[in-house]
């Protein structure tokens, strides 16, 4: 097997992975960095993030307020020491991006502009029109081209981590164009492979968001934390599921039911604010979990607009005017017209909540280190946790930068202590054998598409915005069944060059592991908190569940669920008040 010897291997070249690579290249110019991704970096899903990245810069704002918004928004499941670190680093990271040439939108005086965003008491979301993620990704990628020490392995699909008892020492990956497996010997590995939104049928996530990094860590024995917390973004297009940024509401857009009523005021987010003049943290600028849940309740009452794609609410931006929409929401306008045939300047756009982000992920501490020495994680695939039970919009892009860098520094520390990278030849050979088995299997009877469809149906039906014990029980059983049937998948394509049948089969394996972690964790959490809502346990239960859930791999069976206390420092669990009364 061809091998690559490196000091640090980074899996995933989106915002977090690229930021980690840059941090390493700048801190240690002689360090060998392997940046491995199953897609070319500019295809990473960071490019689809629209709204912006939060960081305290304006006078009148303070780190304490960003802290309070984040911790409250997360329904007190955030580790407060990690949040402290995150918000303090946030402005520095966003400034660093500006210095790398990111085209942040500006105030007339030339300073960086900020916009209002959901769940934030003050404006602190830096933005680049409505393509913030795109610009951040391209700025990072283009800057990375400055550093020859960053060696890229584009379109390499990482399959397994190589672990020897004590440490992570590298990985195996398939060079997609040739189908050949390579062994990467690394003294440290950083996982930055993104979330797993594709386990649900309606999602803003692109095809690549299949939870491969999460699954790799999971199978190496690292727990997945808080997997039950899946965020629904309130405004996705009902046919494609793609995202209409929260900034639509930040700029003043409103949400209407089929009677034209701004129904959010009936769900604790009122009183109704003047159209076009949003008040932070109330009504349409409430947090995503509350807004999505209000949709679900309103839909149950029959007040949503029936369309050919299901029930929808209306996102009305007409009062913003053509000039504002073209300047600040051009992508939104383009997408509405192209995919829905609706021009937001003239008509309200039908939208509905779609799966968007996973608060949960690979268990790390606030230094981005996993419990497995030598393995670090950052970005959506990781759970520190700074997002708790519900993430505030625009914290995620900042999270990529802060923890991408943090993971890099932790990895560098680790590498400097442990100079030896021991090649795990036998483990790699076993990984290859496992792959070959899948490849050559005949007569299995199961297909990738078939199992995937069943998984999507189960998640949609039983693991959506509102869950029940019964439904989750059914989902757990179903996913266990799918896990077993997965071993009988047979490939249609048994050739080597760019075999996407094989890749989809491997991605399905990752998704099944992630999905099982989600439903098992959800079944165990008998309370409602943030994005995890249970019809049979509608209240928050701090006595028993002010803890993170940990799903640990148990070969051949469902994950073992255990719990870990949340780090509470300054902010005791309180009431999440998004009514105008709090202002």
């Amino acid at each position: 097997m061809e091998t690559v010897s490196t000091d640090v291997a980074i899996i995933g070249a989106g915002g977090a992975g690229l930021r980690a690579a840059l941090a390493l290249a700048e801190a240690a110019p002689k360090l060998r960095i392997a940046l491995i991704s199953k897609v070319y970096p500019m295809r990473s899903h960071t490019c689809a993030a629209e709204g912006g990245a939060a960081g305290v810069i304006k006078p009148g704002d303070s780190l304490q307020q960003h802290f309070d918004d984040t911790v409250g928004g997360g329904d007190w499941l955030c580790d407060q020491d990690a949040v402290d670190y995150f918000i303090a680093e946030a402005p520095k990271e966003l400034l660093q991006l500006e210095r790398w040439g990111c085209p942040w939108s500006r105030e007339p005086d030339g300073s960086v502009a900020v916009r209002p965003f959901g769940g934030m008491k003050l404006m602190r979301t830096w933005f680049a029109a409505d393509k913030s993620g795109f610009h951040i990704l391209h700025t990072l990628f283009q800057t990375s081209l400055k550093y020859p020490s960053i060696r890229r392995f584009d379109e390499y699909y990482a399959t397994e981590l190589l672990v020897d008892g004590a440490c992570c020492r590298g990985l195996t990956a398939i060079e997609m164009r040739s189908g050949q497996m390579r062994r990467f010997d690394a003294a440290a590995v950083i996982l930055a492979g993104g979330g797993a939104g594709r386990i649900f049928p309606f999602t803003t996530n692109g095809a690549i968001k299949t939870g491969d990094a999460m699954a790799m860590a999971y199978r190496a024995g690292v727990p997945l934390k808080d997997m039950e917390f899946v965020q629904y973004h309130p405004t996705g297009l009902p046919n494609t599921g793609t995202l209409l940024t929260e900034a639509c509401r930040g700029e003043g857009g409103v949400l209407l039911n089929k009677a034209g009523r701004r129904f959010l005021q009936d769900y604790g987010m009122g009183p109704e604010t003047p159209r076009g003049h949003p008040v932070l943290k109330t009504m349409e600028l409430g947090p995503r979990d509350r807004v999505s849940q209000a949709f679900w309740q309103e839909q149950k009452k029959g007040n949503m607009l029936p369309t050919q794609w299901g029930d929808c609410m209306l996102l009305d931006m007409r009062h913003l005017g053509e000039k504002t929409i073209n300047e600040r929401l051009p992508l939104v306008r383009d997408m509405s017209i192209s995919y829905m045939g609706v021009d937001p300047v003239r008509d309200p756009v039908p939208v509905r909540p779609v799966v968007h982000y996973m608060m949960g992920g690979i268990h790390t501490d606030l230094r981005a280190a996993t419990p497995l020495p030598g393995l670090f994680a950052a970005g959506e695939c990781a759970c520190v946790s700074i997002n708790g039970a519900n993430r505030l919009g625009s914290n995620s892009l900042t999270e990529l930068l802060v923890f991408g860098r943090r993971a890099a520094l932790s990895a560098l520390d680790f590498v400097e202590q442990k100079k030896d990278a021991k090649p795990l030849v036998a483990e790699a050979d076993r990984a290859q054998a496992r792959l070959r088995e899948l490849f050559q299997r005949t007569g299995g009877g199961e297909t990738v598409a078939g199992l995937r469809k069943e998984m999507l149906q189960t998640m949609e039906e039983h693991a959506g915005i509102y869950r029940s014990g019964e439904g989750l029980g059914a989902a757990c059983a179903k996913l266990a069944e799918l896990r077993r049937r997965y071993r009988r998948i047979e490939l249609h394509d048994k050739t080597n060059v760019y075999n996407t049948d094989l890749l989809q089969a491997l991605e399905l394996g990752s998704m099944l592991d992630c999905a099982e972690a989600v439903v098992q964790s959800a079944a165990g959490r008998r309370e409602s908190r943030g994005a995890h809502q249970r019809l049979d346990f509608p209240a928050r239960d701090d006595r028993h569940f002010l803890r993170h859930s940990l799903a640990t791999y148990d070969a051949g069976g469902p994950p073992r669920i255990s719990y870990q206390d949340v780090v509470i420092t300054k902010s005791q669990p309180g009431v999440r008040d998004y009514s105008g009364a709090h202002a």
Partner: protein
Amino acid sequence: MSERAVELEVLRYNPETDKEPHFQRYALSCPEEWVVLDVLNKIKESVDPTLSYRWSCHMAVCGSCGMMINGEPKLACKAFLRDYRGTIRVEPLRHFPIERDLVTVIDDFVAKLARVKPYLIPKEPPPEGAEYRQTPAQLKRYKQFTLCINCMLCYAACPEYGLIPKYLGPAAIALGHRWNLDSRDGGREARQEELAATEGAWECSFVGACSEVCPEHVDPAGAIQRVKIESTVDWYRAHLMPWTNEEK
């Protein structure tokens, strides 16, 4: 949801089984509002799992799904069935070698992006603890050139690139121009070597196809002509007024 009969003629190629590419027909029924990418996904899911192609975001921002649709370079996620009648011909993006089916080898493009030094080469150090000041007007000057999603439709449309593979190409030159126009940047001279080379902007004969097919309205053709003018002015200044040259 009304459906319509769709017939795709897709260029297939598997180096392990084929000497050369060949067309394969697929006929199926699809919702009218779909895009070609949706049809490909349905084919892969329910008819032929061996079909290989790149895609991700389905919202024209990742740049993965560029292909030739009825002979025109398009993003498959933005090729609406309603705009096509009859059999739709789907081929991999032109002017790039075919790896497998609709997947092309884009190494040349990625290398060219790197050659134009597409990163900030600061004109002066940043202010202490604060951002560079950049007015909305200054941002507007280069903004449109930042919108390139690296989809390579422009390379597929450009006959110069097709005939002269050494040509830097529209997206790479537009990207160099983006950085040249950024008010914070002072790297124009550093990029000159690549941009003003024979295989740089000067290979362009202003066909303009690149700007026509660009899904993000970046206008690389405009960028290239401006690079030509800038590099000409620079050349004359450097030779007629040598005292203005920077110390090397």
